[in-house]
């Protein structure tokens, strides 16, 4: 991920920070339409511009904000809204667990900051970077900071643009589709081996079958199914297990 330039040794922090920004940049550009459409949708649901922007600052989780704004528009009660947020964002606890042991050497204030920046998109790039054991762990949190911050800046600005443009971004542009496309771009290149492909496929099928479960519980059921399928298949295939132990290359994306 990090180009082996002279600066990599002389200014490791800056080089890691910049490496994170660069790795995240394609996803950041792809996220702009999604942030805009969130801003539009939040106003349409009855939020004030200040509330719409505050949700991007305070919650900072795209799909939960979409669902949250819609639920506020339909007048859902608070416990249901919060429970839905919990289920939809449970995946962040999995990301947090996965990165936890790589961050434990850091001071608390670093971990508080990085936790705030832990989105799907930042995790996807940061996990790959941490999995590369060739690069020492010493400054890798600067990569996380770079990837997380540029994603954060994009989300705040594109929310503001969406709020500003409002109804001038018609629903017929289907800009919400960019989220699914971004995730396709993250997931597909990582499906090199059978276990990860089966994990993705089984999770997707369960997500469709369990779609009508309340509070978006289907999302969590689907994710757990995919994870179990992946682990079981990897155990059955000793070759796959061996390669995953010797290197973390099998990791997604």
């Amino acid at each position: 991920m990090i180009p082996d330039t002279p600066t990599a040794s002389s200014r490791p922090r800056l080089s890691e920070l910049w490496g994170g920004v660069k790795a995240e940049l394609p996803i950041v550009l792809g996220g702009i339409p999604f942030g805009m459409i969130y801003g539009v949708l939040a106003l349409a649901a009855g939020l004030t511009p200040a509330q719409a922007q505050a949700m991007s600052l305070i919650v900072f989780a795209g799909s939960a904000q979409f669902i949250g704004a819609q639920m506020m528009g339909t007048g859902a009660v608070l416990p249901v809204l919060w429970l839905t947020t919990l289920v939809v964002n449970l995946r962040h606890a999995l990301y947090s667990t996965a990165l936890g042991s790589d961050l434990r050497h850091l001071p608390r204030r670093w971990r508080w900051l990085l936790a705030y920046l832990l989105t799907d998109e930042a995790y996807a790039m940061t996990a790959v970077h941490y999995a590369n054991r060739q690069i020492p762990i010493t400054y890798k949190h600067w990569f996380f900071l770079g990837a997380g911050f540029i994603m954060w800046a994009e989300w705040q600005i594109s929310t503001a643009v969406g709020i500003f443009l409002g109804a001038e971004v018609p629903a017929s542009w289907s800009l919400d589709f960019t989220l699914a496309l971004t995730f396709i771009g993250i997931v597909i290149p990582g499906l090199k081996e059978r276990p990860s492909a089966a994990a993705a496929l089984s999770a997707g099928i369960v997500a469709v079958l369990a779609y009508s479960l309340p509070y978006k519980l289907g999302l969590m059921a689907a994710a757990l199914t995919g994870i179990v399928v992946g682990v079981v298949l990897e155990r059955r295939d000793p070759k796959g297990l061996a390669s995953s132990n010797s290197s973390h290359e099998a990791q997604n994306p």
Partner: protein
Amino acid sequence: MNIWLAIIGMGIITYALRLGPILLMERIEIGGTARQALRFVPAAVLSAIIFPELLMPGGTLDISLGNERLLAGLLAAIVAWRTKNVLWTIAVGMAALWLLQAVG
């Protein structure tokens, strides 16, 4: 509903989910199986978001040539596989969706 209270509650829940495990991992060492399971998290979670977006655009299952999001998404998946580039994936996927919507 108090919108501000709703937003602040959502923020606290989301931040707790992101921060809690990171702080817990300070003391806990996770085993081989857990580590192995965590590697499948992105593929499983993101696929669980992608599939309904493509297969159930109106909230109901639609596996037909009339489902523009499914066709555009499949094309985007091919582009993602061939180019390994997120921007190309999004560009081709959106272009395909707009084209199909204009034709359909």
